């Protein structure tokens, strides 16, 4: 079997495992939509302005995919490494990339599903607008821009225990969300923060998706940076996977 077919098989059974516990999906599906309802919809100055509202919905989409990826990859992998089923899967004749791709496909699909209620609320309760073409470009861009976070989650999952992973992910997602302008638009940032922000994958993801939906200029730093984060983290994830021998105790 080819690497891609096997990855799809792994994704299929990971998804099956997840959806047999429906409550775990509801969390992923509802959390981003609630964030939009609480943080954006009540503020008329943002929610009634088509440009700002659209950007806010995009920021929330990136936030949702980022948080979903960091938590489900980071915690999911850290948890399964502590169980003996994961080491067993590693004895099967499948290269490391299959397990990583399987995780990306299954969790990625769940993250994209979480965007459905988010976009519905955004479209119905705010002034955000997008043509069908813009929507399609936006979703594709979100999928691409979510890769660094998936890989970051994978790196965390393969390098530390579950408890350490929770702490690291919480700090990381908060710093990335705030620093990347997903909570407050970067236009409100002081210059020094804006300078740092430009190098964060969350800021690059936000700018990339906004460009995909609204068009305009795409700074080279944004797409080169996204590609660099993705390639760098993929390399790191593969190294960590190959080095991993299950849970380590000292």
């Amino acid at each position, binding site marked *: *079997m080819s690497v891609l077919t*096997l990855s799809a*098989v792994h994704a299929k*059974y990971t998804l*099956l*495992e997840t959806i*047999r*516990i429906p409550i775990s999906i509801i969390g992923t599906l509802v959390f981003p939509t609630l964030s939009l309802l609480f943080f954006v919809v009540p503020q008329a100055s943002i929610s009634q302005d088509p440009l700002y509202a659209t950007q806010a919905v995009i920021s929330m989409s990136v936030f949702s995919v980022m948080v979903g990826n960091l938590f489900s990859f980071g915690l999911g992998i850290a948890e399964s490494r502590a*169980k*003996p*089923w994961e*080491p*067993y899967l*590693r*004895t*099967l*004749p*499948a*290269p*490391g990339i299959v397990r990583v791709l399987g995780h990306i496909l299954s969790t990625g699909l769940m993250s994209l599903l979480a965007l459905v209620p988010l976009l519905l609320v955004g479209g119905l309760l705010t002034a955000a607008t997008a043509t069908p073409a813009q929507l399609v470009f936006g979703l594709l861009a979100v999928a691409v821009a979510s890769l660094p976070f998936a890989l970051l989650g994978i790196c965390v999952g393969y390098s530390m225990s579950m408890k350490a992973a929770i702490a690291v992910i919480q700090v990381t997602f908060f710093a990335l969300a705030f620093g990347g302008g997903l909570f407050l638009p970067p236009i409100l940032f002081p210059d020094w923060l804006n300078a740092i922000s430009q190098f964060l994958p969350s800021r690059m993801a936000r700018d990339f998706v906004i460009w995909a939906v609204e068009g305009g200029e795409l700074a080279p730093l944004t797409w080169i940076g996204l590609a660099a984060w993705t390639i760098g983290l993929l390399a790191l994830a593969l190294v960590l996977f*190959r080095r991993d*021998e*299950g849970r380590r105790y*000292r």
Partner: protein
Amino acid sequence: MSTLARLDGVSRSYGAVTAVDNVTLEINSGEILGLLGPNGAGKTTLISMLLGLRRPTSGRVQIFGSSPVDAASRRFIGSTPQETALPETLRVGEVIDFVGSHFAERASTGALAEEFGLTDLLRRQTGALSGGQKRRLSVALAFVGNPKLVLLDEPTTGLDVDARRTLWDALRRQHNAGATVVVTSHYLEEIEALAERVVVMGQGRVLADDSLQGVLDRVGVRIVRLDSPDPIAVAALPGVVRHDSGTYFVNDSDAFLVELVRSGLAFRDLTVRGASLEEAFLALTEVAA
């Protein structure tokens, strides 16, 4: 007969602890090899290196002529998780299909279920299985890819006698159908029931590598306890393998008693009993050292 797997001077340590210590071993096609040893002897570490889960600290591990770390070399190998670690929400049939999809020539789910008595359980989620049923499914997974070499780490731990015999029968049938099997255990009974060749491990080293009968003879140690004013002289009698404050390990207790009486040495409170496997291992370790 060809060599399916080979370990060359393999050692593996975890920090300061050496789990496997300079082991050289060949696994040949067609055999059932029993890997016998007490807990902590290094059996599981040895198996996990053959499966590519762990790398040796030094030495070389090869399966089918290449490193087990390469996924392609594991195409003809089957294994079973040591703990019953099945994904609880997946159904029995789904787990078999999932594992089976990794192999080019897989056994059909129905035939495998039949073989391991899982036919009525295929639609059941694995979380709902009993301990014995989980064990049977775990062992069945080792055979789903029609492997040439099967590595089973403690396949019957925690099973009652009936369930254990059922599994042994299934293993023998698979072996007769052409699979080479390596099975670890700390039960001599299990190794006796299955293996033709036995490797005894202790403290990370190979203590004995022999036919089943050869090993049985060597671990058939008896323990003689007695009080004597001159224990050194008693220990010096022929046939004493090892001694420890009034306890003497001997190969042949009858011959030893004859020697003891002939020697004229004073003794009292004499008892003779068979050694447990653990004690027999200890005696073997001493002889090797």
